[in-house]
């Protein structure tokens, strides 16, 4: 059974029809790169899966459970986490408190101290700044915090919207290593990226979206080699 199975997904922002019968499957324990031009529908796809679109029809199943009929908060509780493009570090809250937000849904079933210690080992940059205001971190550190917050409760799958955007190359490489490690631990990742080259080197499979539809699906290595298709659908 696929970890995430999207079938005939249609989504709208008000009157504008953004996704046109999109279908896509992500298998357990793989990294899938979802690439395409700006405005192709990448973010909308993720937002539909997370329940943040005003209107979405079709079917989205996560580990066999239909999501479209579930409220947004119930989807995270199934083990589906999301790192939004804008990172959404909550102002007024310390780094530690932002991490605690990721544990709220567990309602005390996860030992908070142990979970934060554990995540601090993965993200040493955050460890030194736990009591600092989250929004005072650098862009790259905020991205790390957003990822840490999404994974602290141990999700089965993480949807990442342009995690490499505006981040120093050295941090982008660090992030790539982290994603590989997560995959090896059995976490499934769907990676939306503008940094196509990086995403394809990282991913197992690649999917191209154009005008709200999937137009190409192959192994990431095959797409990496196929400059013509990249040029056609991903060139800015």
């Amino acid at each position, binding site marked *: 059974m696929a970890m995430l199975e999207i079938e005939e997904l249609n989504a709208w922002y008000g009157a504008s029809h953004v996704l046109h019968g999109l279908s896509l499957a992500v298998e357990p324990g793989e990294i899938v790169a979802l690439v395409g031009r700006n405005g192709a529908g990448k973010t909308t796809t993720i937002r539909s899966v997370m329940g943040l679109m005003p209107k979405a029809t079709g079917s989205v199943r996560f580990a066999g459970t239909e999501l479209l009929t579930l409220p947004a908060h*119930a989807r995270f509780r199934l083990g589906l986490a999301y790192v939004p493009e804008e990172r*959404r570090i*909550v102002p007024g809250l310390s780094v530690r408190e932002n991490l605690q*937000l990721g544990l*709220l849904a567990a309602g*005390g079933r996860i030992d908070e101290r142990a979970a934060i210690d554990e995540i601090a080992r993965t993200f040493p940059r955050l460890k030194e700044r736990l009591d600092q205001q989250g929004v005072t971190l650098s862009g790259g550190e905020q991205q790390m915090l957003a990822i840490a917050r999404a994974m602290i409760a141990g999700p089965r799958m993480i949807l990442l919207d342009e995690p490499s955007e505006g981040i120093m190359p050295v941090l982008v490489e660090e992030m790539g290593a982290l994603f590989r490690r997560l995959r090896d631990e059995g976490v499934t990742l769907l990676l939306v990226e503008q940094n196509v080259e990086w995403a394809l080197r990282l991913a197992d499979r690649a999917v191209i979206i154009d005008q709200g539809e999937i137009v190409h699906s192959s192994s990431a290595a095959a797409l990496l080699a196929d400059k013509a298709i990249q040029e056609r659908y991903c060139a800015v």
Partner: protein
Amino acid sequence: MDAELIAMQLFSGVALGAILVMVALGLSIIFGMLGVVNFAHGALFMVGAYAGLYVATLTGSFWWGLLIAPLAVGAFGMLIERVLIRPLYKRSVDDPLLLTFGLGYVLVESVRIAFGNEGMPFPTPPELSGVADLGIGYFPIYRLFVVGVVAVVLVLLWLGLEKTRFGLIVRAGARDPQIMRVLGVDVAKVWLMVFGLGVGLTALGGVLAAPMRSVDPEMGALVLAEAFVVTVIGGMGSLVGAVVAGLLIGIAVSMTALFAPEMATIVMFALMALVLLIRPQGLFGKPGRA
């Protein structure tokens, strides 16, 4: 004019301000989190006073009234949020405002029908009657009690917001409800409780204020105006602002009453105008936040 009189009047202002803090805090919490300007807040203050009087009369004890009325009116507030306000969230911000404005009238008229037009006395409980000598003057024990209760509530509220999981949800949810949803928090449930909390606070203000005045159906109108002044001065949505500005207004009104009684009501609006001119977002407000 001697120092003792000034001290007494100052203290009287603190007691008055303490009540205002309860009302303004409720208003500010509800606005900060839900974005709803609750125009029924004054009427719910009045309902709190009547509920306190009713329970106190029924049980023969002020203490039961003080305990049960805020809880019962808070629960009533949750019902209001669930049934009347929640369907309006996706619509224009004016809709909840108009709804609560109308609801205020409905509550006032309902109380008028049930308890009559006339004001009713709310006796000070005997154990809190009389005055206490604090060395610098004689102070009414009941007012000391009011200030004490409000201080305890503020400490509990602060601890609840800063030290508990629910408090973290409230603080984060006020800033970014959407990220809370994708982190698995049912924000609608939190809003329900926050509205109940805000209404419970104003009802507590109503019960506490009642023995210092009489209880009548119109008693919420002026309090609502004062609470708005307090939230504007303190900064909309700022809890610290509500506390500081509430005490400030209480003291200012009380001191003005001593020196120029006819100016007492005007002074708070003058203060508000002054703050708006110098610092439009309020003393503790964040600029640019509507």
